[in-house]
């Protein structure tokens, strides 16, 4: 007889929600830590164009823009998964459809990341390799 799934590879015996719980936490912490820096860098605009343009130049660097793509993904994941959490919270009976709802939110996240990765990635490639996409 085949081994039960829980006997083979999972880290611990939680529900699939353990992964979205973990990702929600990681993306949330990442976003607030970035926000700390982001409020300060935006505030530099109050010190005039010389100071502020020196700051935004950092964000125009293509390596930083790869990190920026990660930030956008984090915000989007946190937002979509947050909606999923609220669906379960405010319509408790939907918890019975936990699997399809989780699947739908994952599909929505990946589906929206495809055009976003293209739009942002195009610019990154142009900057990094001098292309003209």
């Amino acid at each position, binding site marked *: 007889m085949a081994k039960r799934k829980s006997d083979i590879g999972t880290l611990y015996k939680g529900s699939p929600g353990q992964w979205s719980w973990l990702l929600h936490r990681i993306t949330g*912490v990442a*976003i607030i830590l970035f926000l700390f820096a982001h409020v300060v860098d*935006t*505030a530099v*605009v*109050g010190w005039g164009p010389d100071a502020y343009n020196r700051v935004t130049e950092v964000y125009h660097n293509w390596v930083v823009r790869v990190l920026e793509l990660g930030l*956008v993904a984090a915000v*989007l994941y946190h937002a979509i998964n947050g909606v999923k959490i609220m669906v*379960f919270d405010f319509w408790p009976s939907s918890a019975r459809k936990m699997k399809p709802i989780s699947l739908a939110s994952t599909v929505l996240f990946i589906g929206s990341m495809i055009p976003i990765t293209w739009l942002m990635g195009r610019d990154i490639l142009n900057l990094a390799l001098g292309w003209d996409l």
Partner: protein
Amino acid sequence: MAVDTQEHAAEPAGRPRTGRRAGRERPGAGFELWSWLFMRVSGVVLLFLAVGHVLIMHVIDTGVSRVDFEFVALRWESPFWRTWDWALLVLALVHGINGLRIVVQDYVRWPGVRFAVNMLFAVIGFSLFVLGTVIVFTFDPSDWPVT
């Protein structure tokens, strides 16, 4: 606060997960209930403010490539965008700092250290709120006339 962690640890391992509730239990009353509610209400608003901000500033057109002093000066000519950015600043900070408090609750067990860490984040959050608010409402590009 400590009770929360205790309850979590005491959850029977064999309990079926297909029951009527999913995820984190809603706090019964008091501050934690308001915190729970705030995270959801601010979450809905941030869904528009934060996702909109990210799409406008980072995704469409040439994204952050076009952001410089002039871009901000032009954008903040409109009270609409100043209000948007200020609301985003406040809600994101409170939502994020409260989120950190919940994370700290899970990983920092010793009450003194927990209090210190929470205070540190609260002070950072409040300072950034003041800094951001001052800049959003006092920024005036005519202080630096184009020569």
